[in-house]
């Protein structure tokens, strides 16, 4: 684990009730891995006790944000604020349940004019539950 618990707040600007990353597990080159435990109190848990699909999108976006934040923090720079610019080819194969641990792999492309294209894949116990591409804008505030 590179960052977890309170320390994850050094990497992402989101706070309770919409913090959707528990840990940055690893980061090497253009690839990072993150985790999120799905708790009953999660903002995206619906009446049927499963997570709504936008929760998966937010988790993937914040995973990318944590990766970008980590890259800045190791260079001694402040973590950037990222906004989702586009979601493309998102698939949800299964909505996560309370108690599931989401394991997500982010692959980050090159940044061009403040826009970074990332791909994300989320698994639970090795089963792919969602994947997507995303464009992330970074702002300096």
């Amino acid at each position: 684990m590179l960052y977890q618990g309170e320390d994850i707040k050094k990497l992402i600007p989101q706070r309770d009730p919409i913090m959707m990353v528990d840990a940055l597990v690893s980061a090497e080159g253009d690839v990072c891995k993150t985790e999120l435990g799905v708790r009953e109190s999660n903002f995206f848990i619906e009446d049927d006790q499963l997570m709504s699909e936008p929760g998966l999108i937010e988790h993937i976006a914040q995973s990318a944000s944590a990766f970008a934040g980590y890259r800045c923090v190791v260079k001694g720079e402040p973590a950037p604020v990222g906004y989702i610019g586009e979601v493309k080819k998102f698939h949800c194969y299964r909505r996560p349940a309370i108690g599931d641990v989401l394991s997500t792999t982010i692959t980050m492309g090159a940044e061009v004019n403040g826009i970074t294209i990332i791909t994300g894949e989320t698994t639970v116990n090795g089963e792919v539950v969602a994947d997507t591409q995303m464009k992330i804008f970074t702002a300096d505030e």
Partner: protein
Amino acid sequence: MLLKDKFYKVQQENVLSPLHGVYLIALLPDADVYRGHFPHKAVCPGVCNIETIRECAEMLTGKKLFMKTIKQCRLTAVATPQVCPLLDVDVMLTPNQDSSAYIIQARIADAETTYMELKGEFSVNN
């Protein structure tokens, strides 16, 4: 529903056809989500606007819908309850061959600005 009456309130429902509706919504500036997005500046999470589109599609069809695929969703402007307190959510659905899913085209906009455009497939079955 996750966000209806918590993140937004429907002010007006214009059902143009059984598969095309325009929902005028008011964003609720005191919504809980803004405590965390972000602590110093309230910005609508893009994913909440995606969820709002789904909920409007559910109101239109009267069915629970699952977001199997988002082909493309463009977030073309930053929405906040201050910048755009009132928004039109335009939802257009086309059933697939066996009616197990709808192709959806949706747009969130006000008179001046488009904030989101979404194309995808929402399934009737989980």
